[in-house]
């Protein structure tokens, strides 16, 4: 960009396709990376960005297509081989050994030694050089990595990649968990790396940030490459237009419901995992959507409300009764129900039966002197299976053998069975089929019409617009704006979520 002579092309990915089962994650994608450029890879959640870089790093193998690295055929069999060829990845979840020191982590797997004994002095010198190269000599080499801040950990990872003589550095959402200050430091490092001829593939949802650091971009949507070009010649609005595209209109069953009094109100609520205070009112019979990017703090808010994380400041009021501390057990007694975004690990007991899962949070109807009425419990489960149209052979069937959509219905049915009045739903439609989705939308409407209050977290804007009464947008832990759904559209939601500024 700075110089006018054309930069040589470092990496070419051609006609890359990859399917997982029936879903086509990548469809004939082309991708080119020049030497010494920062190339942004953009797209909505699930557009195929991660799959593409995983193929590049060697963690996944493409079904079709080929790659050329410095004009040689490149077909890494593992991330390790990718690294040896100069492709290093900095993952969202950092890959450091927490107990080892900074120096030990950076030199891990490439220790200098004579007769098996480590040459500590020489290694320290090299590590110090590497840290100085990215202008972070202040990081002490001898402290265990677990004591560093997230930002410093990232610096360590970058130093390690440099040590491996990386020519391509892939950064997947590097700033999502960084403070503004740490992000700025990262941008400076990126500039220096660029000057040293390292090419960087930069994945991020924060568009303004991308515009600051990237030279060029490629947009993916639904596994297809939509367009690529120079960052300078493209406006934010154009980028968003490319990412969102012309969506096919989806069917959102509408159920009449009216909102009543305030049921849940959050007063300057701050939890130990939250980034900022949140104020919010949720009414009876209301579906309130929480929009935002992954990591914007919505999940943390729900977990704090449900007492899975601890409240540090402020209070939660249910029907005007305020409280702050508590346990999930108490919250259930207060009429709350929580649906985790991690269905597999938190939402369900996968190896147990449908009946067990459905009734886990409320045994009381079948409980006598501490004994369970198994028959009655099974009948109730059978009832829910029919009501919720769950496709299962019997209530005894174990949950892991159900499809994703049916599993989610079981998880939802549990909240209904426990008669929750306030439903905290975290990504209830993620990864499930269209039919189940539309059924879930319909229930949400019905629940609202019966006066229940729903807090609905989703990263998929059209569904929020389709069924919510109001939508609040989160950006870096803060609520940017709350409006009626009719006053939002996909573009304005995207702008608010990615830039933190409401149009």
């Amino acid at each position, binding site marked *: 960009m700075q110089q006018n002579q054309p930069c040589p092309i470092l990496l070419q990915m051609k006609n890359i396709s990859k399917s997982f089962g029936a879903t086509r994650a990548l469809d004939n994608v082309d991708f080119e990376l020049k030497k010494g450029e920062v190339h942004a890879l953009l797209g909505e959640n699930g557009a195929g960005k991660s799959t593409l870089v995983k193929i590049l790093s060697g963690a996944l193998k493409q079904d079709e297509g080929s790659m050329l690295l410095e004009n040689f055929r490149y077909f890494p069999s593992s991330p390790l081989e990718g*690294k040896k060829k100069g492709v290093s990845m900095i993952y969202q979840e950092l890959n450091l*050994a927490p107990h080892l020191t900074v120096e*030990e982590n950076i030199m891990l*797997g490439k220790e200098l030694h004579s007769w098996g004994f480590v040459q500590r002095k020489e290694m320290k010198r090299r590590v110090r050089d590497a840290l100085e190269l990215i202008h972070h000599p202040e990081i002490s080499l001898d402290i265990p990595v677990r004591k560093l801040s997230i930002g410093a950990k990232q610096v360590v990872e970058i130093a390690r990649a440099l040590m491996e003589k990386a020519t391509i550095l892939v950064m997947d959402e590097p700033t999502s968990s960084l403070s503004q200050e740490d992000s700025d430091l990262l941008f400076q490092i990126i500039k220096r790396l660029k000057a040293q001829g390292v090419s960087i593939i930069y994945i991020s949802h924060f568009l303004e940030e991308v515009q600051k650091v990237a030279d060029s971009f490629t947009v993916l949507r639904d596994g297809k490459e939509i367009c690529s070009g120079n960052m300078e010649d493209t406006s934010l609005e154009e980028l968003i237009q490319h990412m969102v595209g012309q969506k096919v209109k989806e069917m959102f069953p509408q159920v009449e419901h009216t909102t009543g009094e305030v049921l849940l109100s959050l007063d300057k609520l701050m939890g130990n995992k939250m980034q900022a205070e949140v104020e919010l009112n949720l009414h009876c019979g209301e579906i309130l959507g929480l929009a935002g990017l992954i990591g914007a703090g919505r999940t943390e808010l729900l977990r704090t409300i449900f007492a899975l994380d601890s409240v540090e400041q402020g209070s939660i009021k249910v029907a005007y009764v305020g409280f702050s501390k508590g346990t999930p057990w108490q919250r259930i007694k207060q009429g709350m129900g929580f649906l985790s975004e991690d269905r597999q690990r938190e939402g369900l007991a996968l190896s147990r039966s449908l009946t067990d899962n459905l009734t886990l949070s409320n045994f009381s109807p079948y409980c006598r002197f501490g004994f369970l009425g198994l028959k009655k419990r099974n009948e109730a489960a059978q009832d829910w299976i029919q009501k919720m149209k769950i496709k299962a052979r019997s209530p005894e069937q174990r949950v892991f053998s159900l499809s994703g959509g049916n599993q989610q219905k079981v998880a939802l049915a549990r909240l209904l069975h426990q008669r929750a009045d306030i439903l905290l739903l975290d990504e209830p439609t993620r990864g499930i089929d269209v039919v189940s989705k539309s059924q879930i939308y319909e229930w949400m409407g019905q629940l609202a019409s019966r006066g229940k209050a729903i807090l609905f977290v989703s990263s998929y804007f059209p569904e929020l617009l389709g069924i919510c009464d109001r939508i609040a947008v989160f950006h870096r832990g803060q609520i940017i704006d709350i409006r009626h759904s009719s006053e939002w559209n996909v573009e304005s939601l995207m702008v608010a979520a990615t830039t933190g500024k409401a149009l």
Partner: protein
Amino acid sequence: MKRKKRLQGLIGWLAPFFGLILVLAIFSSIPEIQDRFLRIANFKSVATQSVIVALGALGMTLIIISGGIDLSAASNLALSSVIVAYAISAGFHPVMALFCGIVTGGLIGFVNGSLITSLRLVPFIVTLGMLGIARGIAKWIAGNQKIDAPLTWVNELMARNPRPSWLLMAPGVWLMIFLAIALAVVLRYTVFGRHVFAVGSNEAAARLCGIRTNRTKIIIYSISGLFCGLSGAMQFSRLTVGDPTVAIGLELDIIAAVVIGGGSLSGGEGSILGSMIGVFIMAFLRNGSTMMGWPNYIQEIIIGAIIVVAVSLDQIRHRRER
């Protein structure tokens, strides 16, 4: 500021000793046993008694740092001691007999490591299986009874009053000290030592950095097996017979020593010095309690409590660090 840091460093280095010093201080302040407890002869005998558990704990330290566990250590020890006795009674040269015993231990460790890595089973399950298998083989070889072996110099390895007398302590004690230092050096100053910590701290990251984690684990379990074999040889030396039912439950003492010494069962943490201190805390407690005439069950209760207290103190210290 700098001075404060240095002081903190010193305290950090001394912290593992506090438990041991406390135990020693308590028993030496009780007038009834004071003079008997503080005698050099008593220290020598405690040291000799500790050799068997200590050798096992050295190998176990490696395993626990790497995030594993070895429940078969005591069975392995018994099997090795039976092999040594069997070989000597069959007329082998004592050196050859010792060699056979130690190699048997190493082999069991190698099998443990290979099964853990190739079948991708958790170490708890594999070594729980091996606990039964090794004990069974030991009983089989010994014909379900003790093997008597003629007295040789092997039996002097654990003698409280060694010959020549300038040795001061049993050769087994010297061996234990030497091996502890050697293993501490390996852990601290070699590439292999770093990899042991890396595998225990974050196995995925270690693999990604090009460490052959499976190979590292097999080596760790093999080394630990060799230590168990050596420990078994010492057990034979002390008993002068090969007893397949010896050391039942001793694996838990070994694990306890490592854990008291700061080893974390989730891996990445532990030290040779710590484990050795753990061994001696338990040994002096037993010694002192016996002198006091406290029954066995009191000792068991105290040691049980110490495990819980030591580990929780360790955790509090870690939480403060953060």
